[in-house]
């Protein structure tokens, strides 16, 4: 194992690791907490919950977000729910079962101890959120309701209509507001982190740009927490918000934090299909719809052709002429197979020519059976807002005709490498939530992102960071006039200047769309050696052209959205390149990473545990990134081929 890649997983039985570890790590006294500063980048579930918890503990926290309010963070868009092993449904759920489902769902490419800990604290999250007043769905008797999600055979998902992420974020944001009011947390909105500052190899601060005035500012701290989310927007069209970006994480990578499993990106099966070339993003339809919706395409090619010519409506196709392909291929899980499996199955049918819209890139998600079984009012109560949203976008009423869906990039499992403490390879720099790589392996199960963000922020990081800070309380406040800050600020200003100086002919979005096309074609749902190599060289060419021919309008000293986009896109070329390299390096199919050279006769993913049971961790270097690996060992979960058939 490489020197820096020490996972710090404690010894002992799985179920006792975290308890024992917590007892052994050091804590900081209240008087000393007041002497220390912590920077949090990002205000989603991870960042907001971490900042609120650290504020409650008495640290001086500064929290930064690029939006006009912490409440806008993209966690807000999560629809379906949050998992927890409460076993309120008496369906034999347990911490172990949630752990097992998550490890298996991730195709055995995550760390056992981290995942077990996640499952262990999941129940505390629900308690905390209820105490905050999060309006989870309830039964008439007043107890909490649950529903099922992909990759699980129990009902463990807690939800607030189709707006669970919003409600959880408003809960974390409320806790954050409470700390801001108390003065323990200071909030900096419309501030973008543009670089990480290291002093003697430790994370000591950041450089930011005030997005309203353009002012470049320095902030110091005893530790920095990265909670800036994922990098799905490298594909241009994704379900992520327009401003979600990978730049903060990328700056940390370039300062020495290893980047883990960059090629693991999640493609969500239930998104509204692409409608034209001017589209700015993909809209997600919650996975919860697969509780009651059935996915199908026609069995007969003649029906496909009639649909394309709009000669028949989908509802006119007889029951026996429908191919419910997920139920056919995966009888045990049916429509609730994990996301990667459902996405590939949709691609398989569309590649075979059975796609149902004009572009041939869509399948049906049908509620006919559920409406007949439960009645329209119940379906409306469960999914009303989603149905309304679908109709607004497509003008089709999903109570009458099935929805049309097609996979889209949604989430990145890869991210900054962290140890059991959630600390990166840079001392004093922590990464939480989607920004790190830790818990989801090759594929994330639905309703687990919210769980992870809040687990990290409320219950894990506040403990582990104490161990680090217990050695730092004698350090004075960081001097932002130190040469390292001066140097970092200079570099940031130079890069901004360089972007304006190009004065080329093409817009930022033009290049972003081109990059997105390359990524989707070559580093998308199906990957192979030839394509990945082509992708790497095409990205390099495009990046070159961008730096010669992009036009960034306006100036730095103003509110300038083109500059923001250009800054982030410049990093996306590099992120895309690393994703392709990692995908090329991982000559196995696993989770969301499907190498067409590696499949079973039935077309399922074929893992190679002998050669690839590791976390890839890339170290930045000016020429080509340096590859390291952290081997994964499974002491407790039995490693087997994922089976959703029986």
């Amino acid at each position, binding site marked *: 194992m490489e020197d820096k890649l020490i996972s710090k997983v404690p010894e002992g039985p799985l179920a006792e690791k975290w308890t024992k570890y917590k007892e052994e790590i050091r804590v900081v006294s209240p008087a000393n907490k007041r002497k220390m500063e912590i920077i949090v980048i990002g205000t989603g579930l991870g960042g907001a919950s971490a900042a609120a918890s650290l504020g409650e503990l008495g640290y001086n926290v500064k929290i930064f977000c690029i939006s006009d309010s912490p409440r806008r963070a993209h966690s807000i868009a999560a629809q379906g729910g949050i998992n927890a092993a409460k076993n309120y449904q008496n369906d034999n759920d347990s911490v172990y079962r949630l752990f097992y489902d998550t490890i298996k769902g991730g195709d055995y490419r995550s760390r056992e101890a981290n995942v077990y800990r996640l499952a262990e604290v999941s129940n505390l999250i629900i308690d905390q959120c209820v105490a905050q007043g999060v309006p989870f769905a309830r039964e008439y008797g007043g107890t909490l309701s649950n529903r099922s999600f992909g990759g699980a055979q129990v009902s463990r998902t807690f939800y607030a209509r189709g707006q669970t992420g919003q409600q959880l974020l408003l809960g974390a944001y409320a806790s954050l507001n409470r700390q*801001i009011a108390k003065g323990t947390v200071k909030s900096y909105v419309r501030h973008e982190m543009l670089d990480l500052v290291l002093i003697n190899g430790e994370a000591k601060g950041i450089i930011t740009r005030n997005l309203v005035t353009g002012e470049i500012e320095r902030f110091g701290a005893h530790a920095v927490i990265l909670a800036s989310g994922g990098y799905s927007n490298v594909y241009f069209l994704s379900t992520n918000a327009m401003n979600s970006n990978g730049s903060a994480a990328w700056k940390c990578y370039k300062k020495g934090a290893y980047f883990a499993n960059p090629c693991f990106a999640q493609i969500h099966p239930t998104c509204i299909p692409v409608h034209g070339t*001017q589209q*700015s993003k993909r809209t997600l339809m919650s996975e919860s719809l697969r509780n009651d919706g059935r996915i199908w395409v026609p069995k007969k090619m003649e029906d496909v052709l009639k649909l394309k010519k709009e000669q028949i409506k989908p509802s006119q196709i007889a029951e026996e002429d429908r191919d419910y392909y997920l139920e056919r291929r995966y009888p045990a899980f049916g429509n609730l197979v994990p996301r990667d499996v459902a996405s590939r199955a949709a691609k398989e049918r569309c590649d075979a020519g059975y796609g149902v819209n004009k572009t041939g890139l869509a399948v049906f998600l049908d509620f006919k059976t559920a409406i007949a079984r439960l009645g329209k009012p119940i379906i409306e109560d469960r999914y009303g807002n989603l149905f309304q949203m679908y109709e607004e976008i497509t003008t089709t009423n999903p109570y009458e005709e099935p929805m049309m869906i097609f996979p889209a990039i949604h989430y990145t499992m890869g991210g900054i490498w962290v140890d059991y403490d959630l600390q990166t390879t840079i001392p004093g720099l922590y990464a939480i939530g989607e920004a790190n790589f830790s818990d989801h392996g090759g594929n994330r199960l639905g309703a687990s992102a919210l769980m992870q963000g809040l687990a990290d922020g409320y219950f894990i990081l506040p403990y582990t960071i104490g161990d680090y800070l217990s050695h730092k309380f004698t350090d004075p406040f960081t001097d932002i006039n130190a040469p390292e800050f001066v140097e970092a600020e200079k570099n940031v200003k130079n890069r901004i200047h360089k972007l304006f100086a190009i004065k080329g002919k093409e817009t930022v*979005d033009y290049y972003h769309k081109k990059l997105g096309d390359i990524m989707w074609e070559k580093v998308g749902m199906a990957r192979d050696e030839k394509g990945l190599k082509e992708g790497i060289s095409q990205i390099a060419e495009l990046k070159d052209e961008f730096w010669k021919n992009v036009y960034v*309008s306006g100036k730095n000293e103003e*509110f300038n959205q083109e500059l923001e986009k250009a800054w982030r896109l410049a990093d996306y070329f590099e992120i895309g390149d690393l994703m392709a390299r990692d995908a090329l390096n991982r000559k196995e199919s696993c989770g969301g990473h499907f190498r067409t050279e590696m499949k079973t006769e039935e077309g399922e993913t074929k893992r190679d545990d002998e050669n690839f049971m590791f976390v890839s961790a890339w170290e930045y270097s000016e020429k080509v990134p340096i590859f390291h690996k952290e081997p994964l060992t499974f002491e407790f979960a039995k490693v087997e081929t994922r089976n959703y058939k029986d």
Partner: protein
Amino acid sequence: MNFTLKIWRQANAKTKGHFEKYQVHDISPDTSFLEMLDILNDQLIRDGSDPVAVNKSCHTEGPVAFDSDCREGICGMCSLYINGRAHGPEDDITTCQLYMRKFKDGETITVEPFRSAGFPIIKDLVVDRGAFDKILQAGGFTDINVGSAPDANSILVSKVKADKSMDASACVGCGACVATCKNGSAMLFVAARVSALADLPQGKTEGVKRAKSMVAKMDELGFGACTNTQACQMECPKGITVANIARLNKEFLSSKFKD
């Protein structure tokens, strides 16, 4: 489809703003309103990269600044006053959920920022809604530390009350209510948060002062008073009703009595 756009341009909070007219052509009816603005901006940037075009016309340089993020109606980042209505002509949606098929081909569309004393303009169509954060910091939370919560099912909440709380919690904090109100009042916003918590057992103890301190903060930040015009509920993209304001008033009075 083709459109004439009359758009408010303003370099920053300190300068005077004005309307500019632009033409956009060949817009697909399936394009969203914000995607149409993306297309306009692409056009304006290309004009700007060509010095001849800039010299030719005296119009405001560069793309139109506007806020947006999730583009699926949940983050509350997008705003815009379109043809005299917050979030445009359709009910119950945010601007990002508005599609060009809702307009007539050849129509002139007027686009303005959310105007209110409480929301200073940052640039063009972008306003500063930071006051909303400050109002919530004045009491829009339950007083609970991480680690001290009881088991979730030990707090029973009837489905009716949970649903009511969820209805009020659907507020996305976009500010359409303020922009629509002739008094520039933030009552609907405050009321949504107060009534989301009012019927729940959680936060009851400290909730006594919640309504009073949030309303006081709203007044302090320059928002106007509520005169029951009910315009706010007409424009709320999330269907928050003025019944919440009645609930806020009840909470407000009861906290006054307890003083």
